[in-house]
């Protein structure tokens, strides 16, 4: 399994967030999640300017096997989306924590981050799921 970068936080539903210095949050799905989904073939991105609500679906990733909602861990305006995924959805399979980011939200409520799992807690979660 790939090492989980220390600056990420996670939802139990396998989305990650990286809070950037400028008050935005970059969101993607975990390496574990891409492994469960298998080869990704399509990503339905939100639009820049849309408003993300914490805990609601903001994007959809589809593998050959299944479609899966991507929940936004945080609320706020969507200020960027990873358009490169339209042509190369497999980027998420290859680099889930880097080039495979999905969208960026301008944080409106930092308290929402309190609920999230740190890398150790997330690693523990997926380990227990595998049993």
């Amino acid at each position, binding site marked *: 399994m790939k090492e989980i970068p220390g600056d990420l936080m996670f939802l139990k539903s396998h989305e990650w967030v990286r809070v950037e210095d400028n008050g935005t949050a970059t969101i993607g799905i975990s390496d574990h999640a891409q492994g469960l989904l298998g080869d990704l073939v399509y990503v339905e991105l939100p639009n820049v300017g849309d408003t993300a609500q914490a805990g609601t679906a903001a994007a959809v990733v589809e593998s050959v*096997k299944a479609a899966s909602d991507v929940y936004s861990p945080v609320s706020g305006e969507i200020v960027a989306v990873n358009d490169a995924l339209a042509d190369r959805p497999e980027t998420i399979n290859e680099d889930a924590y880097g080039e495979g980011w999905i969208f960026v939200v301008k944080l409106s409520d930092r308290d929402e981050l309190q609920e999230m799992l740190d890398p150790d807690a997330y690693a523990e979660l997926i380990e227990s799921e595998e049993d």
Partner: protein
Amino acid sequence: MTRKTVLNDSHRALGAKMVDFGGWDMPLNYGSQIEEHHAVRRDAGMFDVSHMTVVDMRGPRTCEFLGHLFANNIGKLKIPGKALYSCMLNADGGVIDDLIVYFIAEDFFRTVVNASTRDKDLAWITEKAKAFDVQITERTDLAMIAAQGPNARAKVASVLGEAAAARALKLGKFVAVEADGLFIARTGYTGEDGFEIMVAESAAVDLWNRLHAAGVQPAGLGARDTLRLEAGMNLYGQDMDESITPWEAGLAWTISLDEGRKFIGRSALEAQKAAGVTRDMVGIIMDEKGVLRHGQRVLTESGDGEILSGTFSPTLGKAIAFARIPAGARDAVRVDIRGREVSVRVVKYPFVRDGQAVVA
């Protein structure tokens, strides 16, 4: 309890992602199902299909029995080794299962039925066989490996003895031969050339390893599904079941209404045909991005239908599907994807055959 094929440890050693399939612990993929798909289309791949049910049927009246049991005409099989694809129907014309049957000798036929339908198939076949004194034997001692792809036959031949290789390479399509203790059939479920090989369980791991060493790439159920759908082949349970007749499942070509043969389900099929078949199975291609999935609603000008098998086609790079829709509906067909109506095209299938796209 989950059942394991004799190759289970081999799959795990290759790092396969395992899933439950009809009660069997089977490999979904060994890393990337799309790469495995392409390996079969471009070179050679192999599938463990030992979970499938092999049933031998013996007795002087076996041919007569199968003429009664199967909707396709067993009488078409004239030479030993020849295979036939057929549906096995209930009295209402509904599909109990689809299968392949091999003619081995006048008093000896072998059929391969689906793993997911094993229990009901065996019960049905055994019950119906009584009146014909046909002996039914499930061959749980056999494993099965399907080697498929443009280079599959040559690679299989390279691991066989000289005489067996020569006999295997001479096989016509849809014909089988026994050689080197193997039952080698030039059949498959991918739309590519290749062999399906039945092998004694005790020799299966060795054969698998020899094929792997010869450059035949292991491929899982994920690739098997995208390959068969591209090839326009039905999947039992998804494209048809006991509530669906072959007329409604794109399987009219497998029904043989030959003079005087009273097979189970025939009168129901004839009645439905006379009354007019109201639903049709069609091929669907979506040019927009996205993936067609089982259960999605299909909208047509003549009423709604549904997506049966649906997937992303690695060969075409777009979504393909089978759909059951009102008969004759062809224009302005749309699919409801998460509340959005997406236009799709109704096309003839197969979508892909022998490595080439058949539809644009």
